[in-house]
């Protein structure tokens, strides 16, 4: 049983739960991500990103509650938050790879930081899984946006998380790379014990992923 499946099996409760969430630009969002679910959060890119940031405790809600694996990440001590978030995959808007590290080092960093003895092997497996064997020692600025996005996805699923949070993954991608990334996301999400919460203004992505759709209640400007 994978770590993700074990996590999912342990918890019948929702992986993520948001109730009456208000942030700058949105008000009254309710959502639940259950084990095995693919949920597409539809709305402006900034609003979707803000919801995901609130879910991982990076943004304080104006009101409402946020629960990740039953805990409020913003209310935990810093170290406990770090431990909680190591169970969640996170693909931020535009990938946000560390610019001063190579692609391989970007993958190795979380493995080494959390003390995985088989870091090199896991990194090599992740590079192979996402077709990244050719340029792993380049820095992010020297590879295409499509490659950066694939590396960010590979990094997000390194620990085989039960829940993957993805912020507007197809933004600025051309058609072929977008299709390939969508396929990679869907393949990952269809594996047992995996759940996916993706935000995007692109409804076609929801259809391609076969996701349940939910609109973000945006407040009028």
């Amino acid at each position: 049983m994978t770590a993700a499946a074990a996590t999912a099996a342990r918890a019948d409760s929702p992986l993520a739960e948001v109730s009456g969430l208000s942030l700058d630009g949105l008000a009254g969002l309710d959502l639940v991500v259950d084990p095995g679910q693919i949920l597409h959060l539809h709305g402006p890119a900034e609003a979707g990103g803000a919801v995901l940031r609130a879910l991982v405790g990076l943004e304080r809600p104006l009101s409402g509650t946020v629960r990740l694996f039953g805990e409020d990440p913003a209310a935990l001590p810093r170290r406990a938050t770090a431990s909680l978030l190591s169970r969640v995959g996170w693909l931020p808007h535009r990938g946000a790879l560390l610019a001063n590290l190579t692609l391989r080092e970007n993958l190795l960093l979380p493995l080494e930081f959390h003390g995985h003895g088989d870091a090199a092997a896991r990194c090599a497996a992740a590079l192979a899984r996402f077709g990244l064997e050719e340029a792993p020692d380049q820095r992010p600025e020297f590879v295409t946006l499509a490659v950066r996005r694939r590396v960010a996805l590979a990094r997000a699923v390194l620990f085989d998380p039960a829940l993957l949070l993805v912020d507007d993954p197809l933004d600025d991608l051309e058609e072929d790379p977008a299709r390939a990334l969508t396929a990679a996301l869907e393949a990952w999400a269809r594996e047992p014990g995996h759940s996916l919460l993706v935000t995007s203004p692109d409804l076609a992505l929801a259809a391609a992923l076969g996701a349940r759709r939910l609109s973000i209640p945006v407040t009028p400007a």
Partner: protein
Amino acid sequence: MWTRLLSLSRTLGTPVVNGASYAVRLAALIGETLWIVLAAGGRLRPAVRQVFYRQVYFTGVKAVPFALLLASMVALVVAAQAPWSAAAGGGVLGTVLVVVLVRELGPVVAVTIVIARSGTAMAAELATMRVDGEVDTLSALGIDPFEYLVVPRLLGTAVSLVALTIFFLAASLGASALLSSLLGGPAPTDLLAQVARALQGADGAALVAKTVVPGLTIAAVACLEGLAAWRSTTDVPPAVTATVVRSFSVAFGWNTLVSAFLYLT
């Protein structure tokens, strides 16, 4: 009358309160760094050690040529005093070097090099990382940004500043001894012996105080300012400017305090 007094107290009070609040934040940052290192028994995680080594390389090793250049210039100035020293009996140059160079100028020059090269770079790098979402990504990956970004920078800068100061002093004293002898001053070994005689035990403690604390402080200021950047690249230049101004203020202020303490006691 009361209105004027109130206005004066506001004018004077606000900067004092802001300054005190900033000092508390710096102290908290440094204190937490030391606490993390102590709690880990001095053993940093390998990934954090890599950042520490990179910081030492950039702040210490790569600053060597610049420190050497400044040391040569200082040596030229010292050598120009050789004829005066000879006329005064030849025994004072060593004392002057200890009082001016070892106690005051050495740490000040090293602090200036570190602020100019590393404080600015650190603030710009961290501000850019913040704006590009890299810091948030670290958090979301379960990597504590404080441990990964702040701790190794503070330690690396402090270690580098100590080493750079010692290197600068050794280079400037050595070059001063050589050049002075060429211009009619004492022989190099005589001048270095004068320096050794003029040194006191407190000079070593003062050197540590004038390098370790500013090293930690410069990096703490750069981290505070850099990580305070928010969502736009326009936040980066103000972070760098604030780092330079505040680092100089804090480091020079601290060195003045240490010197005053030494001379008064």
